[in-house]
């Protein structure tokens, strides 16, 4: 999948984690932590959801790459380019 589908996947995961949030106004270049008050347990859930759904392994040293939507998509693009969106 490409960057657009990866973004959709992340939004889908975020919607699952925080069903009460309106994600339509989410800014791609502002840290998710700031916008949604996500804590470290929530970030781990994003990592675990990616592993559960796509078997994508994200090493601990790379967690900082998940700071904003843009950085997350950039980071995941090479890792997920050969995967089909589910």
């Amino acid at each position, binding site marked *: 999948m490409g960057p657009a589908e990866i973004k959709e996947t992340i939004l889908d995961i975020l919607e699952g984690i925080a069903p009460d949030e309106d994600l339509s106004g989410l800014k791609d270049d502002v840290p998710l932590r700031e916008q949604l008050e996500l804590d470290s347990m929530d970030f*781990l859930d994003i990592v675990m959801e990616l592993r559960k759904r796509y078997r994508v392994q994200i090493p601990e040293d790379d967690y900082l790459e998940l700071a904003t939507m843009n950085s997350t998509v950039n980071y995941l693009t090479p890792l997920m380019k050969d995967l089909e969106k589910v």
Partner: protein
Amino acid sequence: MSSYDTIIIGAGLSGLAAGIRLAHYDRRVCILERHTTIGGLNSFYRLGGRNYDVGLHAVTNYTPKGARKGPLARLLRQLRFRWEDFALVPQIGSQIAFPGISLNFTNDFELFRSEVHQAFPSERANFDKLSAAIMDYDDLDGALASQSARSIVGGWIRDPLLIDMLFCPLQYYGGAREHDMDFGQFSIMFRSIFQEGFARPWSGIRQILKNLVRRFKELGGELRLRAGVQRMEVDDDRVSRIVLDDGSEITADRVLSSAGLVETLAMVDRQPARTPQPGQLSFVEGIAVLNEQPQNLGCDRSVIFFNDSDKFRWQKPEEFVDVASGVVCLPSNFKFDRPLEDPMVRVTALANYDQWRSLPPADYQAAKQAAYDRIMNVVGRFIPEYRTRTVASDMFTPMTVERFTGHANGAIYGSPEKRKHGTTHLKNLFLCGTDQGFVGIIGAMFSGIMIANRHVLGTVSNDSVTTDLEQVAAAGVDF
């Protein structure tokens, strides 16, 4: 023989929440519950055509919809629930009533602050300093956390009466230890009761439990009722086999037990070097069903914590019950948009387990009736005509608690010794729930989540997530 990734002992709030986390991440998980129904210390039942909650007065830690911080918001995200799923409705207002002085509080901390300022003018600055320190305090592993709350709070506040009035609700809603609690717990509870606040679903604890159990089953989790654990066999520092009451056997990689510290150790073959102490504090609770809403009878308080003696005493009484202090709860007095079908008043007081235990069976009912009459007397202060308005009643004693929850000594808040990290002397046996140390409805569920994250989701993978998950789980304690 059945085999699971994780066995959870106890289908209460913590066990169910842990089960949801594990089932969501595709672990093969089974919850074993000895009782015929779910809920544990926070269950529900029907009697004479009416619905009763077992223990629920109020859900603490209430934050309104849209709040992103605090234990409730974090819990909803971890369990993937919407705020509406728990249908929490805030309290009207509660009270701490001591001789000649009372403090009201609502879910707006400013009101409580002004009540304290008015009643204790000389403590204004001290109280503000204390509450600011608690608001910011998030280091539950720090040096302060395990120290005596009485001594730390006493360093800020001078008036022993105000100290007692602050301690009274906190002790009643989670004090496992006599006289005192640790400062970490004091901080969590001060926030959950005074800075966040009380709420209640219209249909009581059912609302929350039914959501939990439905979700757990949808995710593929298995729940077995009438499936008590008789013993756990130990092989090389690990639980190797679980034997049920009916003699059948189960194996699992890990066991999370919400049965309590002493109660769980009683199931395992091999004991730790040092035996922990069971809890000593138990309670009686009387419930009177009224034929009129309390507000129409002159009482609009949601919960009243009362103390009638010079000094508030949090200790095991000598007698069957101690009526010097207690809690009056009026479940109708929350901001519901329709009245409760069965208005009730519940009164909780400290009780002596040994006295109840040693009663000859023939005398139990009479003792129960006598205790009911004594503890319910206090209701007359708030609802003068409650006796003639009572249409049904029920009561639990320490024996009831022990019988239905398995808690040693009928100690609702468990052992004074808590295991914050959930570990035991066995490598694959962990504790969640009461004796892990988080209290209240939200705290119990959070306990299950934290222990599942830390000890199961964090150790199953063979990649580098392991260590980070443990750090994250540790950080998860910080509310």
